[in-house]
């Protein structure tokens, strides 16, 4: 990888600082904005700016996946969760932490941030990008080889995790519904709505 000219180096630093500032401000707003709908939207904005940081780090596919899954999927999920909870949308009903707990938490996390950030700045990391950095097309190629050729089992594990999530979600909701039904005739979790008479007789004859 050839050296960049100084103007581009300065541009990279300015871009990084801008992105980092925006990410931290939106991350803080996503936690602290008093309206929870706005907080969810700010989380989505923060996730899409993190994708910009991934582009600076030479990871185009991760940036695309960040935008597709975090900004497009997870923040939409959180917004739908807020939509389904009318109680959470009302900011006057939100239970806020006591000022003392908030202050202690802020101090604690600021201390941890300062310590770990100071250590990261002091520690002698290697500062250059290595010579064999792949280009854009090669990077996708190498990543695809890593994921689909050498570690194909991980893909199946992801599929199983997604399957478990979907089935578990639906099973939880079904159990909740079965508990609310009045007369449970069969064992737990089975649909227990009263059957019409003609179906009952049909089943008896079978």
């Amino acid at each position, binding site marked *: 990888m050839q050296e960049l000219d100084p103007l581009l180096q300065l541009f990279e630093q300015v871009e990084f600082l801008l992105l980092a500032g925006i990410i931290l401000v939106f991350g803080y707003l996503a936690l602290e904005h008093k309206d929870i709908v706005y907080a969810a939207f700010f989380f989505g904005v923060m996730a899409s700016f993190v994708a910009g940081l991934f582009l600076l780090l030479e990871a185009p596919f991760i940036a695309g996946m960040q935008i597709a899954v975090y900004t497009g999927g997870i923040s939409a999920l959180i917004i739908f969760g807020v939509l389904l909870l009318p109680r959470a949308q009302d900011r006057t009903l939100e239970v806020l932490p006591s000022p003392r707990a908030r202050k202690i938490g802020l101090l604690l996390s600021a201390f941890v941030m300062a310590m770990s950030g100071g250590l990261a700045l002091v520690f002698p990391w290697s500062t250059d990008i290595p010579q064999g950095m792949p280009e854009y097309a090669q990077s996708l190629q190498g990543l695809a080889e890593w994921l689909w050729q050498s570690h194909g089992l991980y893909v199946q594990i992801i599929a199983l995790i997604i399957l478990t999530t979907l089935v578990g979600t639906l099973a939880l*909701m079904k159990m909740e519904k079965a508990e609310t039904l009045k007369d449970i005739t069969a064992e737990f979790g089975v649909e227990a709505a009263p059957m019409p008479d003609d179906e009952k007789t049909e089943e008896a004859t079978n």
Partner: protein
Amino acid sequence: MRLFVDFIPVVVWALLAVVLVIVMLLASWVLRPHVLQNSSKTSPYECGEDPIGPARISYPYNYIVYTILFVVIDVMGAFLWLLSASTLRLEALILWQALIFIALIMGAISFSMRILPQAALDGKETLELYHEAKKAQKTKHMH
């Protein structure tokens, strides 16, 4: 060449978009007549009708299941996008992996769509709980 150098036009475009929005907001603020705001001017516009009832309604829980299905398709699409964007030679092993991956997720989706009518909860109680909490808050303020 570094990747961010290729993306400089995108950064310029994003800055232009931000500037455009600010200019449009400022221009509309300058150009619009600053008249007195009254209740009929600030009420939500519902095709000329008077608004009836509160805007808060309850939604059935199915909505979140559909969103979860969307996210699942999203993740599956990202994984397959990686495979399709590469020029991997489609060996039998990779083909079978992709087929099993798609079959597992599609099986999960079809199962959940099948079981969804039995798990459908109408979210009416969320609104009731909200009104109860609001009432409790009001009585607490009165005392």
